[in-house]
Every structure is written in structure tokens, then in C-alpha cells.
């Protein structure tokens, strides 16, 4: 009996990421107080908000780096980290959770490239070890991806020899090498020098154009306006306002959104 949980929990059929009432506490501190979000397949959702608003935590819940305290979170119709059987959520075994995570790419503020491996090593590591892709094929994929992010000439460099922008582009290639269904970006340009932000955003823009589903936590309002299909403003663990990015940035309805936008724009 395999009913898509999407229909059961009232999610649209094309929802790649669906969250309803997601809550997360660290001890007594409640960071997420019921977050709802629907990201249709092939669209880009941007999340903005002041620091401490819970947007990064929410992103980390999507691939189960953080365990939810409550609520429903589906990626491509599946619970992440759990299996639904007879109205009970059974925690998945490590192997099965890993299979799910392999389908969800994630980019970090600090890139987190494996510092003891070359660029090539970084990209082929997971495809070869997790997906058992043959070395030659993994390498071909890596070269193709590096061409896309414009860094083939750095294939044998170590991360410390690259600029922050180049590292983040390699990280994007590394995530793409797993052919994920969705990419999560956790403030991908926040640790970059201003002149390096553009090259990373350009790669992200190209990805969005190829129809990649993306959830982007960012401070780049310009990027959100231009590339985002929807914009969500989070504050104190809830989504305060959501809507079309252009409209929301031009005429925010909530005073908190307006105040935040006036500070970052």
C-alpha cells in the first residue's frame, strides 16, 4: 500500500518540499514554532529574515541534519528520516537515511569542502563511495560539472588554494554530482568578500534556469527578487510573510517585513 503521503497530508502533487507545522526545540529554547512551506518542483524559494529567526535551522531540518520536534516534513513525498507505517513514524536506519540525504544537496556558508582532498577528490568522493559510480564515469561527470561552474583548471587544486567564491562553486559542483532532486543553500554568499558574491550567484542563477528545485536562505535581496519564485520572511521561528518576491519587496504587508527590508536594502 503505497499512497503518496503528499495526498494524505494535503500537499500539492508537485510539491518537492512540503512542511506543515514544523517545530524544533533545542532544550527549552523553541527555535521553530510551526513553519509551513510548499516548494513546487522546479521552483526557487528564498527565505530571508534576521539572524536567529530559525531559517538556517529550518533548512537543516529538511535533510534531517536537525531532528524535528514536531510537524510534518516531506521531500518528494517522503518523510525525511522516517518511514510511515500504520500511522506511526519509524526512525530510519542509517543506510536508508543516507539514501535520502544523497538526493538532497546542501551548500553551507563556510563551503565545507574536504580540505584533505583535491577539487576532483571532493567531487567524486560521494558518487563513487555512496552511489558506487565507476571511477571513469565519476571523473567525466566531475569535469563536466567543473566546466559548468568554470573551474576545470582547478581540478587538481586543494581547497585552501582557492578563493572563497571558487570554493563555493566547487561545493555546488560537488552537490550536483549526486544528481539531487533539490538543493538547499544555507547563506551561500555570507562568508564571501563582496567582489566574489557575484560569481556564486551567477552559478546559482544558471542552476535555477535549468529547472533545479532550490531552497535558498540568503541575505541577497537582489537575487531573491530576480531568481526567486517565492519569498518567505521568517522571524522568531515562524514565517511572517510570503508571496511573490517582486511584490513583497516593493510592498511588504507586515510591518516586521517592512522594517527588515528597510534595514537590508
Amino acid at each position, binding site marked *: 500500500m503505497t499512497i503518496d503521503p503528499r495526498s494524505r497530508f494535503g500537499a500539492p502533487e508537485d510539491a518537492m518540499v512540503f512542511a506543515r507545522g514544523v517545530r524544533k526545540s533545542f532544550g527549552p529554547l523553541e527555535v521553530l514554532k510551526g513553519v509551513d512551506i510548499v516548494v513546487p518542483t522546479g521552483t526557487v524559494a528564498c527565505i530571508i529574515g534576521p539572524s536567529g529567526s530559525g531559517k538556517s535551522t529550518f533548512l537543516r531540518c529538511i*535533510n534531517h*541534519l536537525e531532528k524535528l520536534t514536531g510537524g510534518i516534513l516531506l521531500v518528494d513525498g517522503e518523510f525525511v528520516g522516517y518511514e510511515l507505517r500504520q500511522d506511526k513514524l519509524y526512525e530510519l536506519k*542509517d*543506510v536508508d537515511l*543516507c*539514501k*535520502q*540525504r*544523497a*538526493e*538532497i*544537496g*546542501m551548500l*553551507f556558508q*563556510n563551503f*565545507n*569542502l*574536504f*580540505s*584533505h*582532498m*583535491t577539487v*576532483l577528490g571532493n567531487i567524486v*568522493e*560521494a558518487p563513487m*563511495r*555512496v552511489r558506487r559510480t565507476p571511477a571513469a564515469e565519476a571523473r567525466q561527470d566531475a*569535469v563536466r560539472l567543473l566546466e559548468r561552474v568554470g573551474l*576545470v*583548471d582547478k*581540478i*587538481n587544486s*586543494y*581547497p*585552501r*588554494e582557492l578563493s572563497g567564491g571558487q570554493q563555493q562553486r566547487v*561545493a555546488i559542483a*560537488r*552537490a550536483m554530482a*549526486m544528481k539531487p532532486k533539490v538543493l538547499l543553500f544555507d547563506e551561500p554568499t555570507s562568508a564571501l568578500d563582496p567582489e566574489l558574491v557575484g560569481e556564486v550567484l551567477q552559478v546559482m542563477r544558471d542552476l535555477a534556469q535549468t529547472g533545479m528545485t532550490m531552497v535558498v536562505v540568503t541575505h541577497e535581496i537582489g537575487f531573491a527578487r530576480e531568481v526567486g519564485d517565492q519569498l518567505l520572511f521568517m522571524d522568531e521561528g515562524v514565517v511572517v510573510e510570503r508571496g511573490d518576491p517582486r511584490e513583497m519587496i516593493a510592498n511588504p504587508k507586515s510591518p516586521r517585513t517592512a522594517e527588515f527590508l528597510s534595514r537590508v536594502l
Partner: protein
Amino acid sequence: MDTSRHPDANSSAAPAADDLIVVPRRQYGIWIGTAVTLLVAFFIVQAFVQNPAFAWDTAGRYLFHPQIMRGLGNTLILTVIIMALAIVVGTIVAIMRVSRSPILRAFASAYVWFFRGVPALIQLIFWFNLALLVREFSLTLPFVGTVFSIRTNDFMTPFFSAVVALALCEAGYMAEIIRAGIKSVPPGQSEAASALGMPYRMILKRIVLPQAMRFVVPPTGNEAINLLKMTSLVTFIAVDDLFYSAQAIYARTFETIPLLIVVAFWYLTVVSIMSVGQYMLESHFGRSDGTGFSVGRILRNAIGLRGATS
């Protein structure tokens, strides 16, 4: 002052920068220190050369004595076996110490506490006398009877006790070193690996431990050198290592000092070789720093993808 880059800024009355004479600072303290050190060194060398009790020629005769050679061999074998075991056990204990289970963590802490706390010599003699505590080891299965039984004294030979005792003791130190290495790897590294779908064991093996190596290798080299010297304790339980062999000879011939010189010579030689090995290992594991050399990398750069990209 470097004014050569701005010749126009220099007024014509001042001499050109190249004409200025630099007078070095007088470092009287260093001069005095050097003189005193040279003097002391001279007296030491003189004492070594002139004192007939050192009997350098006797030492020279015993340098390659078969009994000394066998002792040296045993010392090296002991060091290698013990270090290898200590690294394996130490890694396991270190992984237990960073585990999510509080029981495993507590057990590992207790291990380190005990084996680092009790002097190695006492552990050594304890294992040697294990028979006083446990008479025999046997495996008895229901319906089958005793499948296997061995008297403790039959396998707890001096050599075996030495290996067990010093390996367990050394593992306590190695566990701490490896744990510190694991902690030194930024958590973002394992997070990124998790996000790529790598399971915990793979993350440890492929991401965390290799990066921990860079921090683990230098103190491990020190440990290996310490261990080499620590194996001389096995003399107490009559394992014929380097020191024991020398003792055996001078107990007979009373040529104590020359034989101690032979022993010191061989320990110094091995320690020197080990230091070179340690340097090479450090270079190997430091290669992503850009500080070390790596044959593989040079080859990759030479024949690698350069052709494909240009």
C-alpha cells in the same frame, strides 16, 4: 630607511640610500653565551676523550656483538608490535570517547584514566604475574565440554606479557592523541559528508580520520620514540632486549660503562632514523596545506588534466 623607490622625494643634500652604512646592533649577551657554551663543550669533549674509564675501544668491540645485535632486534620488534597494537586499540578507544553513547564514553575515559595513571613498570610486572590472578583460560560449551584450555603460565611468556602490558599502556596515550585529532577536524566537514549521504563509518574513515592524521602524526612520532626507550623496562621481566643483553654481558665482564655507551649509541641511532621517518610522514599528511611534498601530486600535475583543459 628605504628611500630608493622615491628618489624625487629625497632632497639633494641628503646622501642616496645606497651610501648609508648600516651598523649592526651589538649583541653582547649572545657573544658571552657563545663563549661560555664553547668552553663547556670543550670540557665535556675533553672529559669523554681523556677519561680512560670510558674505554672507547672496548665499546667499539661490542658495538656489533651478536648478543647486542639480537637484543637490538628484539627491541625493534617489540617497539613495532606494541606501537601497531597501541594505534589500533587507541583508535578504537578514541572513537568510543567521541561516541554518542554515554556508556561507551565512560568506559573509554576509565580506560585512559587507568592505563595512563598506573606506571608502565607496574603494569608490566602485573601482566607478567597474571597467573597469580587467573590460573587458566578455558572455553567450555554446553553439551560439548571444554573445547579449549590453556594454563596462563604457558602463554604469558615474558615477551607476550611485555607486548600486552606496554601496548595497553601506550594505547591510553594514543587514544588521547587520536581523540584530540578527531576533535580538531571542524564539525562542518562531517556535516557536509552527511549531507552527501555518507554513512557514519565512512565519514570517520574517509573524512575525519585522514584529516585528524595531520594533528596525530607529530605527537605519535614522539610517542614511538618514547616507546622505544620505554621498552627497556622489559629488562625487569627478563626479555632479552638491547639493555638486557648489555646487562648480561657486563654482569660477566664488568665492562659496565662501555656497554652502556653501546646501548646509548644504538638507541640514539634508532631515534635519529625514526625522526627522519616522522618528518616524512608529516610531509605526507600535510600535503593539503601546501607545505609538504607529495609524489602523487607532482605526477598528477605533470601528466594530469592539464592537457585536457588547454
